[in-house]
């Protein structure tokens, strides 16, 4: 277990209960989606995982050890758990791309040569090498997001937490970021934890989905399992991915024999449609005989 949260609650100083008795856990190498509407507590939850916020009650364990909040432990935690913020303008504070990516590794006390290597590697990974000497205000939204990710990658984290990875990005930039994250998960074994309210991207990357509603975890499981609970999804003010929704309607309104676990991605839908056609063909052949 790389992270385990045990009955974590958080109450802000103004009295709002942002997290209510949240318990969850995930393994190394997993791809976890945290889905919820605005104000459901996603960001608050993420902020607990690298020590930005302390739970008002409950415990957080990183590799089975409770989180410590002294400067040294926090630095160690933040080296291993990277956080990419929603608005890249919050994160990119340095005057050039290279300097910004170097900030994390320099704080870890590495030698300039080592830092340069890490910066080069991180920028290569996100495909932003040619912008190394440019200031952040020269970049587009998608490019800023990639640089923000590089700033975290340069610290060589084991877990990457990303708040709204695709918000305010155009479709191409959003899919680029997702593919990049999936590659990091596959090739470097980095554990991914993405908070989002974009239901359509969840089945594309997640192998585990937590649904948050008003600070509580209301569902946990694979995306297929969770999105099959249509009542619950609606109650949390969310919806199924478009494709899942389509098959739900086909099943309910048109009585098509769609599988119980609704297909959620294009490739799943394709398989399901081919299967349905196949069965229909068999059926009609039987009838002819």
């Amino acid at each position, binding site marked *: 277990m790389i992270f385990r949260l045990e009955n974590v609650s958080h109450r802000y100083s103004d009295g709002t209960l942002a997290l209510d008795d949240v318990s969850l856990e995930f393994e190394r190498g997993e791809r976890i989606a945290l889905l919820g509407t605005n104000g459901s507590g996603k960001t608050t939850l993420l902020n607990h995982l690298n020590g930005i916020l302390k739970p008002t009650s409950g415990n957080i364990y990183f590799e089975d050890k409770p989180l410590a909040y002294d400067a040294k432990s926090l*630095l160690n935690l933040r080296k291993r758990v990277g956080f990419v913020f929603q608005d890249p303008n*919050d994160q990119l504070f*340095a005057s050039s791309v290279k300097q910004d990516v170097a900030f994390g590794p320099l704080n870890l006390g590495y030698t300039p040569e080592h830092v340069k290597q890490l910066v080069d590697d991180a920028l290569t990974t996100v495909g932003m090498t040619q912008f190394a000497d440019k*200031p952040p*205000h*020269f970049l587009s939204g998608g490019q800023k997001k990639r640089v923000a990710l590089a700033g975290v990658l340069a610290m060589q984290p084991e877990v990457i937490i990303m708040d709204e990875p695709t918000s305010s990005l155009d479709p191409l930039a959003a899919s680029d970021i997702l593919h990049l994250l999936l590659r990091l998960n596959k090739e470097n074994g980095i554990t991914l934890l993405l908070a989002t309210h974009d239901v359509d991207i969840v089945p594309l990357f997640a192998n585990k989905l937590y649904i948050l509603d008003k600070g509580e975890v209301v569902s946990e499981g694979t995306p297929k399992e969770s999105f099959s609970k249509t009542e619950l999804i609606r109650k949390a003010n969310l919806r199924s991915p478009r494709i899942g929704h389509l098959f739900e309607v086909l099943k309910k309104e048109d009585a098509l024999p769609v599988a119980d676990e609704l297909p959620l991605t294009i490739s799943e839908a394709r398989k399901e449609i081919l299967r349905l056609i196949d069965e229909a063909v068999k059926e009609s052949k039987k009838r002819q005989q």
Partner: protein
Amino acid sequence: MSHSDLYAEVDRSAYTNALAKCSPITKTFFALSSLILTVSAQSILVPITIFVICTILILGLAKVKSHLYLDLFRYPTLMITLSCVIIALFGSGAPLIQISLPWTTLSLLGGISFSVNTFFRVEGALSCLFFLVLTTSITDLCILLRKAHVPRVLVEISLLIYRYIFVFLEVSEKMNTAQKLRLRPSGWIKRIRSIALLAGSLFIRTLEQGERTLVAMNARGYDGTIRVLEDFPAPRKITLLGIVIFDFVFVILIFLTVNFGVLMK
């Protein structure tokens, strides 16, 4: 060109000019030594020569757009011209014109040589500074300042201000448009009121931005010092030597022209 556009253009030029990859040490050394030569010269010959050389470097070597370079000169030149007129009229020195009034005598144009001298010194000095500003990025300059043992806090604050100027420039433009779209009232007083509103909410935004940036910096292990990767091309010794010789020639020129008399003395 509006003011913010001009700043953005200068900033763009610092990153994209043909000398951007040249070592900032060389560029700063050249700009500062030329600046000192310009302001210490007694005759107008030295500032004029330096002005010509800097202009050639900026337009020819660094390939900065000429309209940008001219635009930069507009306001300072306007100001210095006005000042020089005053100096020329009322400066000390043997007056060229005297007007007797019943209660006093006006001595005019006594400061004309000093005024001409000042004008060319300022223009020469400006060209040196514009050379630095148009060819060297803020990042490089700040690394240099740090190497020169300028207090850390100053350098760090300048870097942060530099970065967030552009963020808030964008925010203020958006807010301005939003006000316009909601039919901002015309008329002086009302206009001032809506600008005050804009400034107020912009100020609150900066505070919030500060909070969020601090959190994000903490998340990457910020401990109170902003460390910077000191990484830029080392100066070429031959170029530095060239600048030293160049400066030396000018020092000799300064001594030779101490008594040079174009409107001097």
